[in-house]
């Protein structure tokens, strides 16, 4: 999957999970920067991303994510 496609799909998922159609994120964005993104909704996001990209994350991978950039790299590595 091309990177741009990936990012668009990811952004759609973000907007859907956090109920904010105007949400914008960058690589450096963290959970603190997005309203409603906490440890509870984090898993909702992960589940939504897994469904959207048809991939599976492990707990370790999820625990290591520090920002959106990491997430992008992780999804990229799983979608080939």
């Amino acid at each position: 999957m091309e990177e741009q496609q990936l990012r668009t799909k990811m952004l759609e998922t973000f907007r859907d999970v956090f109920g904010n159609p105007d949400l914008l994120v960058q690589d450096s964005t963290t959970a603190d920067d997005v309203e409603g993104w906490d440890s509870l909704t984090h898993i909702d996001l992960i589940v939504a991303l897994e469904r959207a990209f048809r991939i599976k994350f492990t707990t370790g991978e999820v625990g290591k994510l520090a920002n959106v950039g990491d997430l992008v790299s992780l999804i990229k590595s799983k979608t080939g």
Partner: protein
Amino acid sequence: MNFLSVQFALFLAIVVPGYYLCASRRRPLFLLLASYAFYILSSPLAAIGIFLATAFTFWMGAVIEAGQNEPAGNASRAPMLAAVTLLVLYLSFFKTLAPLARALNVDSASEGWAGVLARNALLPLGISYYTFKLISYLVDVYWKKIPAERSFIAFAAYAAFFPQIVAGPIQRSGDFLEQVHKLSPSTEMFRSGLRRMLIGCFKKAVVADNLGRLMDAAYAAPGAAHPSTLLAFYLFPLQLYADFSALTDIAVGTARLFGIQSPENFYEPFLATSISQYWRRWHMSLTTWLTDYVFLPLRMATRSAGNWGLAFSLMTNMILIGLWHSLSWTFFVFGVLHGFFLIVDALTSKRRSKFFKTHTGWDRAATWVGPVFTFHLVALAMVFVRAASLGQAWDVLSRLRLLRIEDTGIGENETLYALAGLTLWFLAWVSLKLKQRTWSTFTVPAWGRWAFYYAVIAVIVKYGHNAEGFIYFKF
């Protein structure tokens, strides 16, 4: 060793200069030795436990990392699970001694092994804290968040670090180890550490311990012609906050004297607008630990089970928080209550935020109703923290009345000092917050600062709570 004691002051008076007098590459070793000295002075026998647990974890960390370098399969998972399980069993063993003694109805005067059990059913110092540190290290190495630590001295200093051994905060290994490998204490950090310790002493001696008298009276004889359980209901969260944040202040401040930054434990918890926000502001080092090592894995494992998975993860997480404090029914109920609150909160949060987006009037009201309501939930669950048994908790809760004002114990000296201290603390906080400033941005001449510090110390000495002791003035 009590933080507020002459012994601790003497200990620091020796250890702090010693730290700065030794060569900077020897400082991690010095921290390690000082921490073990502190531990042995407090409980010599238990020092063996922490040393063995630390050595075991250090070794297993290396084993896990070696397993990751194996080309075939995941050879690090089994050692990680085994080591973590052993550490959990180690902690559980000591935590069950006291409840076991209670359940078997033995006390220290009992004959034979039962008496031995009862007399020794004490938790080794800091075991809940250092075991959690060790477990987090192993899991972080397994998840490749951090590499296995090469220096045993640095690692052992992490586990036993004396400012954090008494009451936390539970620092992550990566954070501490990074700092200990390039210790660079500054004079500004040193001074802010001292100030932090002073604030902690004030909160503990003047506010928390003085409030304790009122609580003792209210809980000892709930509703029976004595102090208002209603007052105790509202003041206990404040006492606990004063007490615990004070211990955190002293821990953080002491660590700063050595150039180590510790994580914070509290961030204006009673301003939380929802119970989930409260838990992101109260005892943060513990809740983030549980989130990262219990809640997240559980939630990931149950993510296909939808809301049931969420409810299960939340309830398990909160019950564990309760039981981490003490293996007793009261703390179990505490955990269950919070689990229930959080589940309701999580399940309704989407609907709530949609509602508040469209009803801005309600939204504005919610900014103060939220904290008030959350405070009540917290106060309710806290009755189970303070009560010695479920029966006593029920006694208190079923007798929440004000009675006459004279009966509330509010006229007692200790309560007045505590309330005065609380007011001063609150005013200080408000004034700093309004001006968006921190302590160090005030430009006051040195003599002014010193006068202020001496004044605070004088207040602590004069109005701080002193234990009753044996003062038999009968004759």
